[in-house]
């Protein structure tokens, strides 16, 4: 469904990503693992239209994504939950969700999707009138994910959804992700919490210093000693 070929991203003289190629099939959940500054977020950003690559190709259902401005991607069925969440802190929860339902295909079904989101995150239903900026970090993350789901996407891009969250909230978020995953939505995720991510994902790519250095089924990677050393560390955190 998503095909990234020879992607190269530079910031001035700094090369963030040097010829990365990945693919994501329909219904798959693919994780991108790597160190800080390895280029994970740049890769995700390029797919989500936030970053303009220097060269390479990103095609989605056969369409060239790089020709489209960022805001047009939502209409194509791609929803990005960026690092730092990117919600509208001054608007209410309900307004944030309404904004998510802007694409044509989502407008008609907005009511039904909203119910699904509320089932997934009951807290949002309770607090729909609350100003999003006054919520805790975990709740804001739920708003962000909920808003992305409101656009009825085919592909969900998640950038560090557990960053800065308390362990109990991380569990909650991953539980929600598992349910979203189960609904059959295609997901591409960048996450520091490799253990929890690999538990959910089908496949993963490893990025080091701007290059893809490995890939494989999540189950295999979880037991690969090299991966364990580099990405999983010692004791795991909040494994579900």
């Amino acid at each position, binding site marked *: 469904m998503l095909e990234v070929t020879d992607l190269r991203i530079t910031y001035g003289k*700094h090369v963030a990503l040097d010829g990365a190629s990945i693919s994501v099939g329909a219904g798959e959940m693919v994780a991108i693992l*790597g*160190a*800080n*500054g390895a280029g994970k977020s740049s890769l995700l950003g390029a797919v989500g239209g936030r970053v303009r690559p220097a060269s390479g190709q990103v095609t989605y259902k056969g369409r060239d994504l790089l020709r489209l401005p960022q805001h047009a991607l939502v209409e194509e069925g791609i929803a990005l939950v960026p690092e730092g969440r990117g919600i509208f802190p001054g608007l209410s929860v309900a307004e944030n969700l309404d904004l998510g339902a802007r694409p044509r295909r989502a407008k008609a079904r907005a009511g039904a999707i909203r119910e699904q989101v509320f089932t997934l995150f009951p807290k949002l239903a309770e607090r729909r009138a609350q100003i999003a900026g006054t*919520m*805790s*970090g*975990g*709740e804001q993350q739920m708003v962000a994910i909920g808003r992305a789901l409101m656009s009825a996407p085919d592909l969900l891009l998640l950038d*560090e959804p557990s*960053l*800065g*969250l*308390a*362990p*109990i*909230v*991380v*569990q*909650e978020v991953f539980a929600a992700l598992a349910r979203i995953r189960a609904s059959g939505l295609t997901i591409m995720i960048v996450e*520091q919490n*490799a253990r929890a991510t690999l538990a959910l994902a089908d496949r993963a790519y490893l990025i080091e210093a701007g290059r893809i250095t490995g890939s494989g089924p999540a189950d295999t990677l979880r037991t690969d000693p090299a991966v364990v050393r*580099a*990405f*999983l*560390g*010692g*004791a*795991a*955190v*909040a*494994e*579900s």
Partner: protein
Amino acid sequence: MTLLAIDHVTKRFGGLTAVNELSFTLAQGEVVGLLGPNGSGKTTLVNLISGDLAADGGRITLAGETLTGRRPDQVARAGVARTFQLVRILPSLSLTENVMIPAVFGAKSHWGAEARAVARDALERVGLAGRAETSAGALTYIDQKRLELARALAAEPRLLLLDEWLAGLNPTELAEGIALIRSLSESGITILIVEHIMEAVRALCSRVVVMNSGRLIADEATETALRDPHVIAAYLGEGTDA
């Protein structure tokens, strides 16, 4: 000897009580973890200690000296340094200049070569000495975090407040970061760490203070706290202790 004493400190925002009658102490040289779910008031407390916010009640003292009611720069000169949840560096200045600032304006007020020497020392301790003259904007995320720590060190603080300084690091970097903090602690700096990464908390802190909804729910040895049902219910969730 008690270095930092938080004594019945309260902070309200409108109708919300972010920190409620909170009390605990830090002994000289201790490394203590400050835990709690998002929105429990940890960052508010850090801001109260560092002078960003004024407490509505209670008292904070550093080695007997009252910090409450003082401005951030006065608190800084009293010997408290901090890092920020979202990295704050000065991108237009060089690494040396970034790190010089607290050396110049802190308690010791060095100037000229002296200040540069302090800055170089601090950069060396975090492993950035080789790039002292490049501009800070060009650093990667992890190096920016290092730089922020170096800046805190250059203040030659008595108390260091780390607000999720380890967040977003991968395991390799995490191990480095933990080692770095440990080396600071060994040099005698008292450290209060706000952190969600339990691995780091376990590795660094002999004791943790746990907050929930602005109140203190635990102040005990780390291992005890992590088994404490209150703490697990409020913060860690089930099946954490892997």
